[in-house]
């Protein structure tokens, strides 16, 4: 069940940083939401890519464990 959709919401802060919320969705439509504060100049897309990769890995692990009945 890989992540098939991602949505990034940003709200700019008075120091130029952002409050960021990332909503990831797997193929079953389940939502995985995280929020963090990005300082000015932070590469948000790079973080999103990492989070997608990590969530994919977690989902794969859970699916594998489920198949094995763990």
């Amino acid at each position: 069940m890989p992540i098939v959709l991602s949505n990034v919401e940003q709200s700019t802060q008075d120091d130029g940083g952002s409050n960021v919320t990332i909503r990831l969705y797997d193929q079953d439509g389940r939502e995985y939401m995280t929020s963090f504060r990005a300082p000015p100049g932070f590469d948000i897309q790079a973080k999103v890519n990492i989070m997608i990769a990590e969530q994919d890995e977690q989902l794969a692990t859970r699916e594998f464990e489920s198949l094995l009945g763990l």
Partner: protein
Amino acid sequence: MARYFASGSGSDSNDGLSWSTPKLTLAAALALATASGDIVAIDVANSPGVVTATTIWTVLNNISIIASTNPGSGTTVTPAKMIDYGTIVGSNTNNVSVTVNGAYSVYLYGIQFKNSGTSNATFQFGSTTLSRFVFDTCYFYLGTTSSSARITFGTTSNAVIRHVLIDCEFRFSHITQSLTFNAYADLYGCIAGAAGTLPTILVSGAARNDTKWYGCNLSGIVGSLVGDGSVPTSHTFYGCTLGNGVTPLVSQSGDNGSGNICQILDSAYGDFQGFYGYYAPQGSVVLDTGTLYTGSPAGGSWKIVTNSGATPTNPFVTPSLPLFHSGVSSITPRVECLRNDGTASAPTDAEVWLRIGAKVTSGSTMMSQFLDAASVINRVTSAGAAQAAGAGTGSWTIASSNSPYSFKIDSGAALTPAETGYLDAHICVAGARTIFVDPQPRVV
């Protein structure tokens, strides 16, 4: 209250009663410390704690274990840090697990715990029920490169354990290594991620506990602070330095509210003062300085973001918004809100509502609860009526407009406080949405 001594240059046939006759091993010195208040001093320059196999040190009473300089004779204990001498308790070459246990109040100063190798080898501290370990200026160095190794405090959730860590440092050697708190813990001035391999998640795999971090330097942790909760835990960071773009709480399997909680209080990366964040399985609240009710004394809004785990019958509920109120006449407390998600209409009272406590019964401290939520049947069926219009979008400073709509939530009915005191407001949100609220409940 006796003093016992151990040094890598000693002998276990010595009596261990002075630096002239120290024990060779930490285990032998600990075996002597059977009375409350005893001190075990270990040679900071020639450690008696080097082992070649997995080792369990058992503490027999309320004692102190202190790394000390060794003058060669006498019984003077001068605390020193093993990290400064390059000495350790554990192994520099083997993948040994290290356990220090005992159902007592134990004080440890200056100890560097370390292991090595490539296989799974874990540190385990204070796992016996009723144990209370205070680690002062200790260094925990997970040197094995095993992905499974952990630094663990406490054991099962049923144990009565609460530890303290002061000016301690944690170092890891694989990105999936982490801290595991199976015990309540307070951490003051600690450091993580300053050296070694940076863990992707700092705290993971814990069991029902509560940790509080005060003035800690976590700037090296740029992944996540708190992992997914197989059993629920709560972690609060006060006045800490955080990593660049760190995620406080990863997405929780228990997104119905049963997972972990993380709070960030005046902690951030760089010089960003006064930040507040509350991260729960169903959503989060953060201080937002870009979009706010103009002139709000709070200097920002609360940005509330929720996910689909929040429902009308099991909503995301914010921490308390307190308002001190001294009047005893009828009031209808309200909170001004802004929706700015491309839909310029009010959410329903099954989607966003206010729950507020007020002391309306004289002679009692109990707060009665008032709310403007939809009826039970409407919440069960996700129906409801639109919340009332607020002060208007002109009353808001909006960083980036996206069809904003101003609305308000209130106590649902007028109430008359019987006592001077605090009103206790909580915003309840159902469904995946983003709203901004003025964190200043208003009564006029």
